[in-house]
């Protein structure tokens, strides 16, 4: 479904990604692990068009993404839940979710049905429809950020460290939701610091190290040898 070949990306001439190749098959959960600064977030930003791809190609369902604007990429069916959630703090929970369908020309009924679907997935949000997003807890903001992304009915959902800074109970809830979303048919590309959790729910894993893929394979195999993993993750 998504296929990145030999991608180079840099911030004002400083190279960050040095030729990454990666593939996300339809219907699967693929995880990307790596130490801080390895370039995981940069990869997602390149896919969603927030950062221009230097060289290389990013193909999604046969179409080239490199050089496209973020809105075109959303329209093609990719949603990006960014690092740090980035909910709109001065908008209510409902408004945050609604704005996720900005590009979808839903009818009133469709919009409502779609929003209720998100509230059913995250009942915590339903209780807080009218609350300003900026006043919510970290876990609630994470749920909101995911719900907002799902409003465009993406084919591929990319999540950047959804467990960051959350209590273990909440992390488990979020991880459950991710597998649930995947079971409903959405392909997932997941960045995680928590390697154990990510490997447990994913089908395939890529380990990034200073801007290149150091290791990749089925998650079950990657998880087997902790010492190699620890060496790359600096854990």
């Amino acid at each position, binding site marked *: 479904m998504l296929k990145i070949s030999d991608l180079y990306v840099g911030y004002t001439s400083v190279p960050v990604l040095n030729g990454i190749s990666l593939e996300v098959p339809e219907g699967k959960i693929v995880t990307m692990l790596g130490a801080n600064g390895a370039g995981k977030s940069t990869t997602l930003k390149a896919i969603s068009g927030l950062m221009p791809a230097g060289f290389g190609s990013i193909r999604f369902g046969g179409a080239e993404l490199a050089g496209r604007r973020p809105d075109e990429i959303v*329209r093609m069916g990719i949603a990006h839940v960014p690092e740090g959630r980035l909910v*709109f*703090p001065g*908008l209510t929970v409902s408004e945050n979710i609604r704005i996720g369908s900005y590009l979808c020309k839903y009818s009133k009924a469709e919009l409502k049905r779609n929003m209720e679907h998100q509230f059913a997935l995250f009942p915590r949000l339903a209780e807080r429809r009218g609350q300003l997003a900026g006043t919510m807890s970290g876990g609630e903001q994470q749920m909101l950020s995911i719900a907002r992304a799902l409003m465009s009915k993406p084919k591929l959902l990319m999540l950047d460290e959804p467990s960051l800074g959350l209590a273990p109970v909440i992390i488990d809830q979020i991880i459950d939701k991710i597998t649930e979303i995947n079971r409903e048919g959405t392909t997932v590309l997941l960045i995680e610091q928590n390697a154990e959790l990510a490997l447990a729910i994913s089908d395939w894993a890529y380990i990034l190290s200073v801007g290149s893929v150091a290791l990749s394979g089925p998650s079950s195999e990657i998880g087997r040898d902790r010492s190699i993993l620890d060496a790359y993750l600096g854990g």
Partner: protein
Amino acid sequence: MLQLVLNGLANGVLYALPALGISLIWNASGQFNFAQSDLLTLGGYIMFTLFGTLKIPYVPAFLLTVAVMGGVGYFLSWVYFYPMLEARVNPQIIMIGTVALSVFIRNFILVVWSSTPQRYRNVFGSRALQFGELFVMPHVLWIIGIVAALLILLQYFLRGTMMGTAMRSVAQRPAAAWLMGIRNNRMISITFMMSTAIAAVAGILIAPINTLSPSMGSTMGAKVMAAVLIGGLGSFSGALVGGILVGVSEILFSAFISSAYRDVFVFGLLVLFLIFRPGGIFKADISEKI
């Protein structure tokens, strides 16, 4: 006494209009535009040319002026504000740039229309309406009506429509707004188009009352700024209430205490607000940016 309050109200609603434009830009792009009051003057002059000189009937001339000024706003956002925001220039620097813009517009007006004060007919009539003991100019009622209508429309647009919500999103988290498929540059341009059009409406309404001069806007500017900050930066009702408060208290002060020190009084009032209620009367939710 009541008559004085009414006169103050008349002044106050004039401050409220440009204040509204400033709050709109603040809400939608997190910018503070010092050139707002000079855009107001420019709107007045364009109306002067269309209505006063070319004799185009009032309503078409009004609409044409608003449209032209909307175009000016779009152009400014496109050549100045968006590139600056995109390059992540410090907001304070962008703000100082708007001071330069204000000087530029004032001199542009000076070159095109000269410094001779101009005036065009007050279409709302120059005979005061009498209500019992009180006299009120018809334009005061019109302006109150227009400001109220604009307020309601804006409120509906920003809270009740997808585009308005998108505008607020861009102001709060530009990167996340991009991820929703919102084109930030477009939204910012539309915001500036709207706020400049509002400034034009203000200029058109004020010119026949205050006499047009290149510095018309900037002499009002200080009061407008006070109205914005007292009402609450980013709040539309605040713009109206702040404008009226400044207008009324200014008139009362000059009638009962000293008219020479009225500007000093307005600033004193502003300082008191900044000390004791820095968010203004209607502290806007969006100004609590995180």
